[in-house]
């Protein structure tokens, strides 16, 4: 459907419904449930320079309307990923966006460079909100506008593909971080990543997640994601991919109205593996019923009370 098409950086997506990194594998795991080509884009699980085993178990816990995860970026490393996973992307029309994480700033540049020549990789989503070890203050990159700026530039320098910077909501002022990414050359922003949280098993007095703190996702964080999208929409000009708790097409509409140019489904994939395509269908019906001409007509269309 023509009306649903959106442009993110250099990419024209068939519709504004993407998958959130880490919740959709590389897409093939969902082949029994849906036709990947019906999606706007597939954003694949986070990749690092070296292979990683991830964190000890338990890695997830359920919370009210949400879940915590501390998978710890288990992945085969970028080289094996390029060799084994990327060729499969060519079977599809849908663009594949690769999510990258670094432990040092320079790794982001190296990752972007390695992916630059890989056919089938349409764009790069830069996860600056991963738990990192080598950073100066032990803070994650996404909390420091200068680090975000440097990483964005580094990736930008190493690739002509669409560059999306994925931000954390866990900052004092997300507008500052968003501006830093925009000014450094990001094509688009993804927000939000998970919010760090803790859950305690009162029987054993242990954290429900072995590495203590995990990232909160799911419907519980939807209001926070929406607020971030709204704040950033009013700050930057580049498109925003909104996410956090999207399970239905109404959730997707909330994000579009709050300022998102496109949306991504994360935890929703676990609750219903077909939620992405159901959201696409829901949007189609909504667009027809309400005679919406294009997604831009919805993006940021929040009607304020004093208007």
């Amino acid at each position, binding site marked *: 459907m023509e009306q649903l098409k959106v442009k993110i950086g250099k990419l024209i997506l068939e519709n504004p419904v993407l998958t959130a990194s880490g919740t959709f594998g590389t897409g093939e*795991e969902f082949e029994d449930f849906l036709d990947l080509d019906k999606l706007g884009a597939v954003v694949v699980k986070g990749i690092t320079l070296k292979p990683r085993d991830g964190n000890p178990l338990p890695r997830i816990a359920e919370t009210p309307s949400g879940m915590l995860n501390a998978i710890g970026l288990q992945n085969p490393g970028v080289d094996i990923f390029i060799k084994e996973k990327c060729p499969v992307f060519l079977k599809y029309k849908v663009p594949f966006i690769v999510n990258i994480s670094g432990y040092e700033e320079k790794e982001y540049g190296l990752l972007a460079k390695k992916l630059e020549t890989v056919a089938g990789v349409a764009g790069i989503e830069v996860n600056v909100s991963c738990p990192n070890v080598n950073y100066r203050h032990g803070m994650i990159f996404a909390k420091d506008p200068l680090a975000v700026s440097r990483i964005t530039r580094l990736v930008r320098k190493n690739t002509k593909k669409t560059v999306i910077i994925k931000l954390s909501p866990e900052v004092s002022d997300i507008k500052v971080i968003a501006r830093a990414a925009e000014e450094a050359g990001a094509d688009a922003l993804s927000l939000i990543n998970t919010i760090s949280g803790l859950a305690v098993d009162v029987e054993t007095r242990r954290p429900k997640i072995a590495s203590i703190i995990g990232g909160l996702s799911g419907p519980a964080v939807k209001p926070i994601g929406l607020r971030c999208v709204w704040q950033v929409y009013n700050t930057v000009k580049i498109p925003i991919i909104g996410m956090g708790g999207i399970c239905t097409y109404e959730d997707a509409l909330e994000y579009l109205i709050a300022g998102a140019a496109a949306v991504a489904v994360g935890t929703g994939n676990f609750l219903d593996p077909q939620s992405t395509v159901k959201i696409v269908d829901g949007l189609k019906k909504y667009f027809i019923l309400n005679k919406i001409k294009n997604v831009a007509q919805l993006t940021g269309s929040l009607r304020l009370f004093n208007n």
Partner: protein
Amino acid sequence: MKINTTARIIYNKQVSNEYWNMKIYLPQIAKQASPGQFLTIQTSKTGSPLLRRPMSIHKLTSTSIEILYKVRGRGTNLLMQVKKGEELQVLGPLGHGFDTDIPFTTAILTGGGYGIAPLKALHDLLKKKKKNIITIVGARTAKLIYKEGFTGVRVSTEDGTAGIKGLLTKALEKACCSNLKGPAAIFACGPDKMLQAVAGVAAKYGLPCQVSLEKMMGCGIGVCLSCACRLEKGGLARVCVDGPVFDAKEIKWNN
């Protein structure tokens, strides 16, 4: 092919002190399913609890699947309240089940707690395949033993109130030492600690042993990586897609 469907409940009843038994009309999933595979079930329509609950296939007909479950927390509490005729969201068949094509004539089924759940479907298949079956059912105490429908049952209780007193592996060792007809294989399901002990017994007697593991599962379809399990050969497996049934020798225990 994995199927995501709405399914009608045929019945749902308490069958023992600890267990409930739910029969679900699931023609498409049942057709493809094999013992050791599992389903994930949405226990609430309100979104709370959020995640689906994994449940082993307990019995299998051509149109229906039964599960046997213990009421532990919020999800199973809601499951317990579901009535005949109501509908649930079900995903399945998930994972890899037991491999019954290996050479053996006697099967030693070993179930601790609700670990017996998947062994019933396996039992029924092996009966059809004319295998000899020994079923070792272990629990803490007599009144928690559930062995409905199993044959060749040997009970073991930790407090000695029924069958052999002690851990289930004691009963297993006894069975291994006994006069087994032809080559034997062990099929086990239960808590990690028990499975590790069973694997030890299997190794001691040189018997092939398949274990069905249980981990917290976020997705059940291989994408969230919450169910990782370390392998002897190095690397990690996902219990939900690479398992839940593994050859006991593949697993790197204690990590």
